[in-house]
């Protein structure tokens, strides 16, 4: 069996195990944590396409998450359009938005790019805040209806959300898996490692970044659509703040940036930890979770810059650079 086939077998094992979990866990709080863990794994997998593989560290992906959440909510609450289609529409809008923003932003290098993404996402948050047609500061409440796979509303049994989040994770994983071994995957990593050398080898550097951004934004918006359906009420603060941008980047960074399994491993550690601190410390308004994230980033970058997964690699020698 090749290394790539082994990955697929591993995925099947993980999926089967995770699909059985909702049959075992009945506690609503625990199921909630499981849903969020899988959702952030999928979102971090999406972020990883641009940040991990292509090396363009975005700290503004909350923008695409918000666009997905809002598109899905507006289409459903105002026009009764199923969230399946709403999320797809949000994905397409985010993709176009990412291309429009990437055009100027990918001319910026390193930290300047990251700072620009933060600023743009904050502007997006302010715009939505003041945009009455989408509920302004009040947000959008999803109409209450019976449990249904069409409207993605499940009031009693939370298990369907586990399957939906798991499905989203599997899709983002498979897309990453497929691209990793294609021309785009090689081009992205070349752009990350050394853009000058990449260009001398015929890599379309700018186009590579644009493609990664578009794909990354698309899946992030699907995640936003899912989240809106899951919580069935959104406002600007609950889907578009900087905290989300951090939560998309961190699992990948923690688990192993630019790797296939890093986002899931990182999310499995980070999200339960976050949820537990939140329920013990109360609310998310006090910023304690942000302090924890900050501390985690520092610990990782000092102790294990290549993430948790590198503990299992025989060959990983981050200090071998001359």
């Amino acid at each position, binding site marked *: 069996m090749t290394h790539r086939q082994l990955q697929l077998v591993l995925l099947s094992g993980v999926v089967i195990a995770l699909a059985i979990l909702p049959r075992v866990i009945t506690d609503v709080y625990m199921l909630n944590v499981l849903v969020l863990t899988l959702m952030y794994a999928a979102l971090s997998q999406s972020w990883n396409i641009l940040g991990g593989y292509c090396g363009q560290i975005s700290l503004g992906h909350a923008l695409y998450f918000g666009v997905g959440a809002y598109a899905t909510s507006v289409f459903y609450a105002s026009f009764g359009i199923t969230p399946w289609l709403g999320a797809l529409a949000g994905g397409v809008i985010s993709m176009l938005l990412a291309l429009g923003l990437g055009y100027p932003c990918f001319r910026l290098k390193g930290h300047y790019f990251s700072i620009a993404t933060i600023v743009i996402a904050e502007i997006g948050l302010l715009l939505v805040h003041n945009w009455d047609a989408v509920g302004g500061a009040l947000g959008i409440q999803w109409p209450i209806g019976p449990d249904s796979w069409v409207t993605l509303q499940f009031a009693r049994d939370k298990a369907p959300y586990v399957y939906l989040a798991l499905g989203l994770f599997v899709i983002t994983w498979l897309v990453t898996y497929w691209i990793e*071994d*294609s*021309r785009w995957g*090689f*081009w992205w*990593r*070349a752009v*990350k*490692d*050394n853009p*000058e*050398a*990449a*260009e*001398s*080898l*015929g*890599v*379309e*550097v700018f186009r590579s970044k644009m493609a990664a951004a578009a794909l990354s934004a698309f899946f992030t918006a699907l995640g936003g659509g899912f989240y809106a359906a899951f919580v069935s009420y959104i406002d600007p603060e609950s889907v578009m703040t900087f905290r989300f941008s951090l939560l998309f980047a961190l699992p990948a960074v923690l688990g192993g940036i*630019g790797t296939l399994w890093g986002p899931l491993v990182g999310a499995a550690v980070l999200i339960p930890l976050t949820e537990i601190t939140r329920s013990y410390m109360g609310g998310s308004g006090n910023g304690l979770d942000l302090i924890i994230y900050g501390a985690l980033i520092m610990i990782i970058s000092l102790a294990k810059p290549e993430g948790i997964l590198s503990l299992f690699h025989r*060959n990983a*020698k981050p200090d*071998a*650079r*001359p």
Partner: protein
Amino acid sequence: MSGEPILEIRNVSKHFGGLTANDDVSLNVGRGEILGLIGPNGAGKSTLFNMIAGALPVTAGTIRFNGRDITAMPGTARCALGIGRTFQVPRSFDTMTVLENVMVGGFMRSSSTGAVRRAAIETLDFVGIGGRADAPAVELTPPEKRRLEMARALATRPQLLLLDEVMTGLTPAEAKAGVDLIRKVRDQGVTIIMVEHVMEIVMPLVDRAVVLHLGRLLAEGNPADVVRDDKVITAYLGERHRAA
């Protein structure tokens, strides 16, 4: 050297602010030749390479490749036309394996991963580091890194290959292997321009030598004549070569 030159450099200059790195350089490179580009440190050799490969824009002048004006073309497009290059300070992709590094170049000519992988393995064998294919690029020794640079450039199937000090820091035995490799590349029909400081290596290998000094073309001709040129000895080679 007959027929149309593969590369024509016409009155090319490069200024970095007040500093003139290349000053009105004109040069033709014939198809299939090995051209040695020599000159003291800071003469502008790497800068000229960067302008030929499209990594730096020219300040003035034109560059034609196979008769086509490429002066304004980005590096990616020049690679597609058939210009390959190595960097004086190796620039490997350090999160990738040696094989993956070469595959990046291979995707220039094909989008089939399997075909690109097979070709890359062949290329690695050709440059003599096939045994290191699965090693992370960071773990290569400096001479291996220079071979990787060559393999990567060769994977793009260039017609013209620019080699910037690929033999620097090699032991005599390694340098001998390097010379053999460069001959092998030329025998496949690739035109080569090489920058090298060690005269014992350059002179027997090249068909023609060009000397840059302070950004200007100082001398040009067959290697034996160039090393006897008074201007070249004074500016670059030093008195040690006067007797030779």
